[in-house]
Structures are given as C-alpha cells and as structure tokens.
C-alpha cells in the first residue's frame, strides 16, 4: 500500500512537471509527425502499400520518438540534483520507477492517440472499426517501451554521451516489441481486420517479464 501511495504522489509530480511546460509531448508529437511525413517519400503511400508497411512505419516512428522522449526522464533529476532527494523521500525505490514509467506510458499513449487520426488520413488507412483494439495494442506496446526505457534511461543518465547512448541501448532491446506490435497492428489495418491474440499475449508477457526485473533490480539502478 505504501508503494502505491508514494507512487501516486510521485506520479502527480511527474505529470505536473510535464503539463506545466508540455515540452516532452509537443516535441515528441512533432517528431513523429515529421518522421511520418518523411517516410511517405520512401514508398508510394497508396492504400494497399500503406496496409502492408503502415503498421511497421508507425511503430518505428514511435520507437524512435520514445528513445528521445525517455531521455530526460532521469537526466532531469540529475541535472536538477533532485535524485537523492527523491530516493530519500520514498522507502521503496521501485515507486520512483513505477511513477516514471506510468507517466511515460501516458505521454506515449497520448502522442499515439493524437497522431493516429493524422496517420489514418495521410496514409488512407481506416482505424475506426478496430479503434478499441488499436488502443489496447498501443497501451501494451507503450508500456513495454516505457518499462525498459525508464530502466535504461537510469543507466544512460550516468554515462558519457548519454543522449546518444540511450537509443543504442534501448532500440535493440525493443526488437520483440517492434515485431509483435507491428504484426498485431498490421492485422488490425488489414482489409478484413482481425485481432492477433498471440501477439497481444506476447506483448503482455514482455511487459510482465521486464516489470518483474525492474522490480528486482530497481534499487541497484539508482545507487549513488
């Protein structure tokens, strides 16, 4: 219970910091938008091609965006010298991770929901009939990205070249997320859409596995 209440307080802090400036959300949204537009030059975005490549393209853009968005997660604490205070304020350091990863999942989900209509219009893919399933995939995928990304941003924040390092560490680790979410999303973009339960289950397993490791190793990640 103590974990949940301290997580709630920290989550409130994360959300308040972000919504005061909305820096992360605006930059990430614009970044994904740019990538989506630039991708359209690499192939002919007619409806048939979009069905085949759209899902992968969307997820690739989101992963790139996430690897940039997760950057300040711990860097901000470090440059403001607030990490030690944060550590002292909670009994379980997992609460810090939990708050940050929930906040990051929310930010990513918000970006995705803002961009989905734009993507649907530009690439002529119909998203409305399967919207609830798309939201589920986006949620599971973003959760996985946030769990691993939050953990690795705690690592990369302590290294040199940290801005470059996080994508290098994170992107290969996210291969399973990219493969599974792309497959599930592609099935939902299909002419006769269907839900690929195997992929949904896989994403859930990924999230659960890394959440467990983060729970076990979290305290070491924040060691001074």
């Amino acid at each position, binding site marked *: 219970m103590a974990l949940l209440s301290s997580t709630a307080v920290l989550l409130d802090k994360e959300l308040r910091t972000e919504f005061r400036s909305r820096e992360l959300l605006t930059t990430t949204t614009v970044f994904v938008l740019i990538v989506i537009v630039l991708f359209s030059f690499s192939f002919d975005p007619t409806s048939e091609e979009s069905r085949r490549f759209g899902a992968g393209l969307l997820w690739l853009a989101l992963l790139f965006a996430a690897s940039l968005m997760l950057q300040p997660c711990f860097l901000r604490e470090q440059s403001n010298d607030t990490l030690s205070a944060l550590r002292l304020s909670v009994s379980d350091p997992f609460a810090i991770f939990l708050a940050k990863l929930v906040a990051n999942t929310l930010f990513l989900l918000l970006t995705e929901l803002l961009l989905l209509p734009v993507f649907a219009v530009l690439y002529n893919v119909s998203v409305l009939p399967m919207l609830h399933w798309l939201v589920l995939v986006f949620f599971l995928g973003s959760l996985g990205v946030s769990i691993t990304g939050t953990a690795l941003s705690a*690592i990369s924040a302590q290294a*040199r070249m940290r801005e470059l390092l996080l994508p*290098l560490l994170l992107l290969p*680790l996210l291969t399973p997320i990219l*493969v599974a979410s792309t497959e599930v999303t592609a099935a939902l973009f299909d002419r006769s859409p269907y839900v690929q339960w195997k992929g949904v289950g896989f994403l859930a397993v*990924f999230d659960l596995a890394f959440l467990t*490791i983060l729970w076990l*190793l979290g305290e070491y990640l924040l060691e001074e």
Partner: protein
Amino acid sequence: MKKSVLSAMVVVLLLGLSGYASFFIAPTDAKQGLIYRILFLHVASAWTGLTSFFICFIANLLYVLRRQPRWDWLGVSAGETGLVFTTVVLLTGPIWAHPVWGIWWTWDARLTSTFVLWLLYVSYLLLRTLVEEPDRRALLSALFGIFAFIDVPLVFGSIRWWRTQHPQPIIMGAPGAGLDPTMYKVLFFTWLAMLGLMTLLLRQRYRLEAMRGDLEIIQRELEAA
C-alpha cells in the same frame, strides 16, 4: 612447461583434430555435398557464443549481488568472447547460404535474432567505454547485461513466431529430422574444441582485465597522493 602454454597447445590440437574430423571423418551430405561441412564450425561457434553469453549473464548477476570486481572482469571477458564467436556465426552463415539458398543473407528468424543478439552485446561493450568510474561502470554494465540476456529468449521467440527460412532445428527438432550419428559426434567434438578455445580466450582476457583493474587503482592512488 608453463601451464598457459600447455593449455594453448591442447586447444590447438583439439581444433586441428576437429578440423580434420569435419573434413575427412564426417560423411558427405547427400543433398548439399561438401558445403554442409561448414555446419560444424557454424553450429559449434553458435553454441559456444551462447555459452559465453550465459557465463556473462551469471557474472553480471553475481556482480550485482556480491560487488566483487572479479565478477565484472569475468563479465566483460565473457561478453567479448561471446561476441567473437557470434561474429564467426554471422560470417560463416552467409558463406554457406550463398551456394545453398542462392542469397547471402535473408531476414529469417535465426539470422535476425542472432544479429540482434550481436547488437545487444555490442551495446553492452559500448556502454562500458562510456562510464569512467570503475565501480559505476561495473554496476551499470552488469545491470544492462542482465536486461540484455533476459531479452534474448523474447527476441528469439518473437522473430521465430512471425517470420521464417533457416533450416528447422535438426538437432532436437521434429521427428524424422536429424543428423547422421557420425556427424553428431564430429559436431560435439568441434563444440568441445571451441569450448576449449573459449576458455583459453576467457582466461587471457580475464587476466588482462584484472591487470587493468589493478592499474586503475594504482593510478588513482598516485593521483590522490
């Protein structure tokens, strides 16, 4: 004679014997002919690479729990040897694939997942070069190593489920599939020789890392004085 020289000689002998066995003792494959003989080097390297990464993972875990520098030294050494053997796998694969499949590379499950595995450990070694302070470097890289190793089965699973051309597992695969008994023996012998080589490399690399560790301590003491 010095122990290290003797063990090196044993490993060279084993490697020579396994090379001889791969070329002259194992029978020629009915369909593929001579080219299949690269299998012994390819598969044995793959197994050895995975063994090495597993050692790296165990060393990483032990470092996080015990904080003794020797686990860090073992971790980086095993990470590097694993990377060497995985590089051999990635190089011998296309040499075999070109005549048999007609292409050098295909984005099939095992190829892709081995490539991702390779990239993960490149990142692991890269991370080490970017953290100055030894204890911090050891801890951070050990933690990343654990994350990377847990990711490996997920990478293999995801890619294998959704995209595939590599020969289905012949060893412990479907019934009816399987190697000739002599081929099995040669393969396991090659693996043994490769494990010998791995141990040799690991030992040398570990000693080098240990000396580096000592040197770092001396340097810091000098700076402090």
